């Protein structure tokens, strides 16, 4: 990480975007951006529709109370997204650890000094700082993703080792999830666990370790759930939804009625009946039920489709991220959003036990909306730096070889160096015109021939991070260079084809 901007002409992180000699920063993934914008617009409409009656009833007759606040949060969030989109995501690697530590300290402080976190709805999840109330658990999600990605990426294949990978991972997750559980916030704890496990999986975890940590964690969750009265109630309500019409059973029963009333096309936008005090938290936890009622199966399916498309485009960014760190950050962020959506939608449809967390981008905002949009900004920044999928595939193929085999490979005599690189194809966007940058001088080092037949003309003049070595300083490289780990040093480097776009 230390080499990240050492070779840049400017120290400004913003400048790295606009003026990097690399110029490889391309347009963000417009699919992804469009999906997010559709989600927030749709969400704003539905927040208005579902909160109008609540505002009238609870906020002194102001039907626009929640809408105006939501729009303010949304504007802040979108600004945050645009800024984050312009910051090279490697920047976050530097701030991840201190950031996460601060978040964990705040969380710990909330547990130790309950006065700073007033209890709302039976849980202390908010911290009041002046006029702003923040939900530290939202920052915990982002902090976890950024730090865990950094940590996992630096471990490389050693995440497979019990002492090196599993134990620190389990300790970190245990600490963070434990702090959230103390608030108590079961939904966010589950979400954090899901994010961590997904990133651990993609980072190359030993599947046996993964299974082990999942089952131990699951057992702890279950034990906690069954020993706390209200959580046990939730599980009982889930198992027998029609049994108890009070409190949570009431909400789920009303949600079911709302969804069921929607039919195929819904009762019409704005025409929900259940939002009139039948359905608690209609604009928040239960907004999916209002959508399903007003817009029917079409509307509910639309929301599910949006999230599936988001998952597809988001994971696509992860697949094409230029380095492991980017891939892991992308995996973490995408998993965060879709698992949070899944917990909410699954809960409100009683597919899984209900825990009160909002749907990202659609539910009434607050800290959650802002932090989520900032996370999307980071994801979009990664999307601006993606590399060709074939290149990733090449690497994946390499990864497909077992560790031992790779070690053997590394011990073999070096293959001949690849042919000199050619300027990239003219289809490359403007900043990377052919010949705009000098072709680097490649140090003499062993290279593995590409398993894919690639013509010399097809080579990308910009080496991917893994090709970069610490020794030669190259002005053209704005991206962090890989220092090479235990396995990577002096090992394979693959020349990818030129990008297709």
């Amino acid at each position, binding site marked *: 990480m230390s080499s990240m901007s050492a070779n840049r002409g400017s120290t400004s992180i913003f400048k790295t975007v606009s003026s990097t000699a690399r110029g490889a920063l391309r347009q963000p993934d417009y699919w992804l951006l469009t999906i997010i914008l559709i989600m927030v617009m749709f969400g704003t409409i539905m927040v208005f529709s579902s909160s109008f009656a609540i505002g009238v009833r609870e906020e002194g007759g102001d039907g626009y109370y929640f809408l105006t606040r939501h729009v303010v949060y949304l504007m802040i969030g979108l600004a945050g997204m645009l800024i984050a989109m312009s910051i090279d995501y490697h920047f976050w690697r530097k701030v991840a650890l201190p950031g996460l530590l601060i978040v964990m300290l705040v969380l710990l402080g909330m547990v130790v000094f309950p006065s700073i976190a007033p209890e709302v709805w039976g849980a202390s999840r908010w911290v009041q700082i002046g006029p702003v109330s923040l939900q530290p658990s939202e920052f915990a999600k982002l902090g976890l993703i950024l730090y865990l990605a950094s940590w996992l990426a630096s471990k490389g294949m050693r995440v497979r080792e019990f002492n090196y990978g599993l134990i620190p991972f389990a300790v970190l997750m245990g600490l963070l999830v434990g702090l959230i559980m103390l608030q108590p916030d079961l939904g966010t704890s589950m979400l954090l666990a899901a994010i961590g496990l997904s990133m651990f999986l*993609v980072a190359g975890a030993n599947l046996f370790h993964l299974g082990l940590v999942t089952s131990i964690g699951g057992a702890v969750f279950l034990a906690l759930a069954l020993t706390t009265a209200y959580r046990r109630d939730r599980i009982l309500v889930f198992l027998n939804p029609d049994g108890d019409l009070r409190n949570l059973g009431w909400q789920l029963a009303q949600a*079911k009625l709302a969804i069921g009333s929607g*039919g195929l096309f819904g009762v019409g936008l704005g025409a929900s009946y*259940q939002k*009139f005090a039948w359905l608690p938290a209609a604009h928040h936890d239960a907004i999916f039920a209002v959508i399903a009622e007003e817009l029917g199966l079409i509307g509910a399916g639309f929301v599910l489709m949006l999230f599936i498309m988001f998952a597809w485009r988001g994971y696509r960014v992860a697949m094409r991220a230029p380095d492991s760190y980017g891939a892991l950050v992308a995996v973490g962020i995408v998993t965060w959003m879709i698992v949070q959506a899944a917990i909410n939608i699954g809960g409100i449809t*009683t597919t899984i036990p209900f825990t009160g967390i909002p749907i990202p981008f659609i539910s009434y905002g607050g800290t959650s909306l802002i932090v989520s949009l900032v996370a999307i900004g980071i994801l979009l920044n990664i999307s601006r730096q993606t590399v060709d999928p074939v290149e990733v595939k090449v*690497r994946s193929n390499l990864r497909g070889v077992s560790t031992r085999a790779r070690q053997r490979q590394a011990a073999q005599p070096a293959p001949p160096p690849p042919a000199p690189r050619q300027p990239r194809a003219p289809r490359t966007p403007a900043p990377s015109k052919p010949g705009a940058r000098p072709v680097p001088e490649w140090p003499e080092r062993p290279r593995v021939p590409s398993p894919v037949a690639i013509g010399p003309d097809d080579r990308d003049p910009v080496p991917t991070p893994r090709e970069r070595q610490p020794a030669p300083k190259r002005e053209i490289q704005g991206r962090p260079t890989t220092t090479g780990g235990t396995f990577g040093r002096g090992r394979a480097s693959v020349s990818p084809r030129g990008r297709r776009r």
Partner: protein
Amino acid sequence: MDAVNDIPRSRIIILLVAFILFSMAVGYRVFSFQIVHGLDLTEQAQQFRFREDVVPAERGDILDRRGRKLATNVPADRISVIVHQLDDPDDTARELAQIINRDEDEILEAISHPDREWVVLQRRLSPEASQQVESLDMEGIVLDPEPRRTYPMGNFASQVLGFVNFDYEGSYGVEGAYHSLIAGEPGHLIGERDGAGNVIALGHSTWDPAQDGADLVLSIDSSVQRIVEEVLRETIEDMDASGGTIIVQNPQTGAILGMASHPGYDPNEFNQVQDAQLFGNPAISNVYEPGSTMKALVMAIGLETGAVAADTVHPGGPYRELPGGERVYNATLMDFGPESMTEVLVHSSNVGAMYVAEQLGEDDLYRGLTAFGFGDQTGIDLSGEESGLFPLPGDPNWYLTNLYTNSFGQGMAVTPLQLINAISAVGNGGQLLTPYLVEEIRHPDGQVEQTEPEVIRDVISPETAQAVNQMMTTTVDSAQRVYGVPGYQIAAKTGTAQIPGVDGGYEPGATIGSIVGFGPSDDPQFSVLVKIDRPQESQWGERAAGPAFQEIFEELFLLYGIPPSDPDQVR
């Protein structure tokens, strides 16, 4: 600084596939709710939401002929609990138990029933209790006013009025007979409610307003009714009687001015009444042997048919032997000797009455008595009226002796109302009218329906009526001190009847003393019937019922300002 160059990104596919599978599960769930069970759930939601509220119609007031309210409505709160909104059922039960005076556990059980959404805990709260509940300010507790029927005068004309039960249905009396008219048509508010129970302003609500009930103006004059009730109570006390009935009727219209039976009850506290028989109205439903009061009517039939004339004198004697050999004596075994028809009434001679009946014969006597309304309901606007026991020739329980015993009011049973209505026909010049209690129906739209006197038939000619009137007036004059009103001329006939026992004979020593008449004689304004059951002080109608009759007439003349015919005599 990264340890390796890349990670197994293909594992991302697992995450994507997992999410798509989960989305499909959710999608299936939504599909199941919306398409498979959509109609069911929509209906259920509507049941939650569309609450059809019956908007109670304002029940009409019941007024007396002077416009005093005999029955009206006051609001009283009903306390209900919305079960799912309660924060703490135990606490709620504890607080409410003190206020509404019910067992805490009982309340807790009622409000923690998982299947119920809405529990009505107590109705007709007192204003103090309402205020206390309100000051609790608890979530989920609802006070809503519902009308409560109230009878401002308490135990007053209760058999006439009836009462309104907890379901707000009129029972007995005018409340029962006119229920559909005074209850009105309840309206319906099919309202779309929000979860807190309020009607959604923009929702689909249909409002079908309630049609309020009509007000009833009774022919009852509460001043007369008060006199009647007081006199009845005093008389029963004085005579140590078991019960009694007094009716005051306007003989010219058939309107009932007062009607009371003892014992009564307080319709405000109808639920405290132990014996449901008290709810009935003895004036229209109790039958008794009228005794000698019948003689006036038999005489009227005799005169009308010409079987006897006013100056006819019958031979007299201490007794008469009936077909079958039974001898019937005069009361107290008197032998009055030859009597004129007037003297027959004055003496209340059984032998004389039997003479008239014999002169009449079966056909005319029974045609006449039937014309006076015996054996049939009078048609008063109340339910539960009896038609009496009046066997006619040819009926299996009619014997030839009935011809004779009926002439002095035995072997048949009438209701007090039947008897006074027949006597009123004599008083008004011969027309049998339909008695009524409701003088006026004031519909909520302002339309007023006035009851017109209804003539059932002309029973006797005005001349006959005048003759009988004269005879009955003479009867009163001869016993002025006991039941006459000094200075006024009134017509009356007393009666003392035995009470049929359960074994077919008569109750030993028990009588019903009664008197029926009208006044003033020259222009009858009031008919009065006094019937005292089992008087212990005196078994004779003259002594048991006469003073009450006298007192009522005195009060009536004063109340209505009837001038005396002989002012010097007025005491």
